[in-house]
């Protein structure tokens, strides 16, 4: 067990492409850190550099109190779980899990004891003498986990370990990984492109884009105080709604009508010399059915929308409607749309807004509904830089 410290870590490929730029990251002993981002953001390259499978072009990497830049993977004492599981097909489950120990010249009795123990934890005891080819996807995944935990390494590195499992199994394994990590208290770096996994598993989450770290923070921090448009759009499901808005006399003119800003936001915008043209970001839960408003909530701005699609989840109701005005287009949002495949569905044609309402709402498909907006939950972004102007304090 050890802390992992990245200082200005950069990866430049021989063809000149910058995969990872200047990453600074302190991972505390026993911490569970998630690297998340769309494909090609450099998260896997970063993990491979920690493992020693990729050379570090610039910067230093420390595991424990040692600089390990020049150490080969076998001398770094880290264990890795691969997306493909990478089980040795010619070895039984027992041999697969014992392989790292045998390489470390651990005596046979100890190897056996450790393998049996890991198999018990992972519920693999019945399968110890089978070959990987005869196991199901979930079992293979657990063997890969087992191979990592028998060693008691300084750190676990996991490269999208759940992305080959079907949805239900993924949720199950997610909690199991979380449990095992907490029990062992081993420092873990986990790479995923799935923001739900990132939010549910990590102590801290590192959002990356195009080789650059966008924001490092706890899941709640990222959700409530996204530093920029990219993080705001990436974290959260359904995603944050973005609208073009114009600032006039402390009021935001938006396709949803005029929305007054609260004092704190107004002051923050003034302090930063905010431009007139802005992007307003509203999470689905920033909306509520005006008919259900109570007490002070009644003072919130209200607008009318025609419900196009209504999805009832029992506990909540998602309401989809269109807003006037063209869709918000910035490089960050384009990239998110491309990555999530939204591009292919043609969803960008209109400006679709999704609102999460209380299950008690009377909203009906095809009928108008009065919605109120909680401007306390609104985010305002600078279209040019993508920076979040509402929460400048969280910058850094």
């Amino acid at each position, binding site marked *: 067990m050890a802390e992992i410290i990245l200082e200005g870590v950069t990866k430049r490929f021989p063809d000149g492409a910058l995969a990872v730029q200047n990453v600074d990251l302190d991972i505390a002993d026993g911490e569970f850190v998630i690297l998340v981002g769309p494909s090609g953001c450099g998260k896997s390259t970063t993990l491979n550099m920690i*493992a*020693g*499978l990729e050379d570090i072009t610039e910067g230093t990497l420390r595991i424990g109190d040692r600089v390990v830049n020049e150490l*080969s*993977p*076998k001398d770094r004492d*880290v*264990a*890795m779980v*691969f997306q*493909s*599981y*990478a*089980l*040795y*097909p*010619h070895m039984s489950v027992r041999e697969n899990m014992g*392989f*790292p120990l045998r*390489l*470390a010249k651990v005596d046979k009795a100890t190897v056996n004891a450790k393998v049996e123990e890991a198999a018990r934890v992972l519920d693999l005891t019945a399968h110890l003498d089978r*070959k*990987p*080819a*005869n*196991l199901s*996807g979930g079992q*293979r995944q657990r063997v890969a986990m087992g*191979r990592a935990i028998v*060693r008691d390494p300084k750190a676990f*590195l996991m490269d999208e370990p759940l992305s*080959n499992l079907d949805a239900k199994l993924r949720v199950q394994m997610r909690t199991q990984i979380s449990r095992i990590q907490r029990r062992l208290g081993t420092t873990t770096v986990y790479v995923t492109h799935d923001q739900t996994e990132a939010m549910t598993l990590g102590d801290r989450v590192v959002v990356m884009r195009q080789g650059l770290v966008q924001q490092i923070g706890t899941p709640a921090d990222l959700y409530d105080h996204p530093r920029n448009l990219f993080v705001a759009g990436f974290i959260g499901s359904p995603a944050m709604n973005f609208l073009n808005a114009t600032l006039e006399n402390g009021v935001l003119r938006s396709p949803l009508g005029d929305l007054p800003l609260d004092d704190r936001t107004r002051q923050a915008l003034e302090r930063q010399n905010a431009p007139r043209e802005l992007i307003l970001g509203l999470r689905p839960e920033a909306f509520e059915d005006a008919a259900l408003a109570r007490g002070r909530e009644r003072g919130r701005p209200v607008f009318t929308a025609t419900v196009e699609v209504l999805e009832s989840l029992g506990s909540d109701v998602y309401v989809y409607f269109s807003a006037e005005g063209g869709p918000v287009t910035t490089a960050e949002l384009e990239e998110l749309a491309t990555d999530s495949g939204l591009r292919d569905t043609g969803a960008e044609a209109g400006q679709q807004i999704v609102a999460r309402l209380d299950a008690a709402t009377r909203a009906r498909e095809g009928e108008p509904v009065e919605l109120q907006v909680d401007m306390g939950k609104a985010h305002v972004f600078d279209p040019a830089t993508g920076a979040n102007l509402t929460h400048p304090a969280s910058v850094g």
Partner: protein
Amino acid sequence: MAAVGKTHATRWGVLNVVVVLYALFPVWWIAALSFKDPSTLTDGDYIPREWTWENYRGIFDTSEFTRALVNSIGIALISTVIAVALGTMAAYAVARLRFPGKKVLIGMSLLIAMFPPISLVSPLFNIERIIGIFDTWIGLIIPYMTFSLPLAIYTLSAFFREIPWDLEKAAKVDGATPAQAFRMVIVPLAAPGVFTTAILVFIFCWNDFLFAISLTSTEAARTVPAAIAFFTGSSQFQQPTGSIAAAAVVITIPIILFVLFFQRRIVAGLTSGAVKG
């Protein structure tokens, strides 16, 4: 439907029988010859009227054949082992590593494979005589190895390319040195490829006649295909046809055994289960 399937099967069955007969007829013919006694050799029958072991007894009586058999087995096995060992390493490099001059290396090995051996026989003959390895085992092993290496590298690199790279990464992170990763993970998975290559290389060395006849002069290194050419009858008026047929049958047997023994190891899909799917 069933009727269509049946005629289809029959047609294929007939075709298979024709092909097998076509391929095995010469084998049967030479085998039949080897069991005939000298007086009936030329009677034109495909089934010997009187079966005799005389021809076999004859060839094993003299050192001419037995010595050649030892040479053949020794030279072919050593060449195969060395060619496959070198080929495995070279193929691994070709399949996995990016290094300057890789294309040149592949081109060179292809060039060697394309060179007509006959054009090399005279220079090889002179070189080997000068450096003193003419008519020795090593004098045949070197050209065999050289000519079978391109084939070995090609076959093996195709197999290596199919092994998921993640396995090697996993081995490295698990604490293996590159050599251990290669020996404990990559080679066992490439085993079907290694055995296939070994069979091909062995057959090439075993069957060679050109180098064997040109680079040997005595029983010291003469292999069976060359030795057969030197067979004489028991008297100078007798044709050695029976002995040649018997020798031909005898040298076919190791090849058959070799293939039967190794084909069990050539099981496809050994890598299934390594990665998803």
